[in-house]
């Protein structure tokens, strides 16, 4: 009940904006800005989160007339636009070769060695919480394409279903499953090569 009130309220604001009341859009911005920022934060480097979230919101505004109010509502549509903006961020970064291919230090390589040898779940969690974990993950992801990166993050790290990831990326479910599998294989191969280099 509460949810449907919320949704009709979104629709009212949208109708208002489409009638030419630009300021009414602020209501939607304030309502969903945290959602957009926290979504973007998971997929984009910290330094570019605010700018990418702004691009996503501007994109929502520009394509507001194409929102038909069907399906899961405005929030789901907003999430789709946000994820596609993150995907475009990486595509643009790869095209302009702005993705930093940082080299791993001995500490990072040692971290990989320790994780692969770790037997206890508690120990694994502690190691995963360290700075090295994020650094190695970012290093591995930077060797993947923008599409592989996004699908891997959505399917394996956020644990979304193939259908959910497909809706967010605008791909078919079969394509998401195939690409997610291939992307995971690629990441494993990259890490394997890094391990072999160490020997």
């Amino acid at each position, binding site marked *: 009940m509460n949810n449907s009130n919320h949704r009709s309220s979104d629709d009212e604001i949208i109708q208002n904006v489409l009638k030419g009341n630009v*300021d009414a859009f*602020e209501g939607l911005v304030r309502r969903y800005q945290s959602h957009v920022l*926290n979504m973007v*934060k998971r997929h984009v480097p910290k330094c570019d989160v605010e700018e990418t979230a702004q691009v996503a919101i*501007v994109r929502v505004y520009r394509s507001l*007339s194409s929102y038909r109010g069907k399906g899961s509502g405005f929030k789901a549509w907003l999430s789709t636009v946000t994820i596609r903006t993150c995907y475009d961020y990486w595509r643009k970064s790869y095209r302009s070769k702005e993705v930093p291919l940082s080299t791993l230090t001995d500490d990072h390589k040692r971290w990989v060695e320790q994780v692969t040898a770790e037997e206890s779940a508690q120990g694994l969690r502690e190691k*995963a919480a360290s700075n090295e974990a*994020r650094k190695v993950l970012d290093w591995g992801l930077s060797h993947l394409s923008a599409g592989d990166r996004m699908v891997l993050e959505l399917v394996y790290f956020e644990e979304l279903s193939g259908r959910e990831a497909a809706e967010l990326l605008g791909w078919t479910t079969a394509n998401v499953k195939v690409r997610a599998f291939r992307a995971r294989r690629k990441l494993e191969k990259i890490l394997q090569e890094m391990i072999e280099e160490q020997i």
Partner: protein
Amino acid sequence: MRQLDRKSAHRLGQAFRHAFYERGRIEIKPTEFWTVEVMSEIRRIGRLTAESDFWSVFERMIWRFIPAAVALVVLLGVAFTQIDPVPDNIVADIYSEAQLDSALYAFYDR
């Protein structure tokens, strides 16, 4: 250093998933400055006028019909190579009319 076997890959995957989750847990609060900046960008774009709405709908419709248009062009192309553009009976008519004309001219020339 050990090889990345199935078990090691699984452990690394778990560690990465946890690291990804940890990063997502840190809540980002939008500042007032950010909100104002976003809204000023929106105001700079201006109203979503009926004209821009019409063109966006028009553009979407055009792209929707592109595959059908391409298929039609290909079909017509094939049809033109297969079908004789001037049917035989028309050629025969023209030929017979030409013969009749020359026969008439011959009659008056006498």
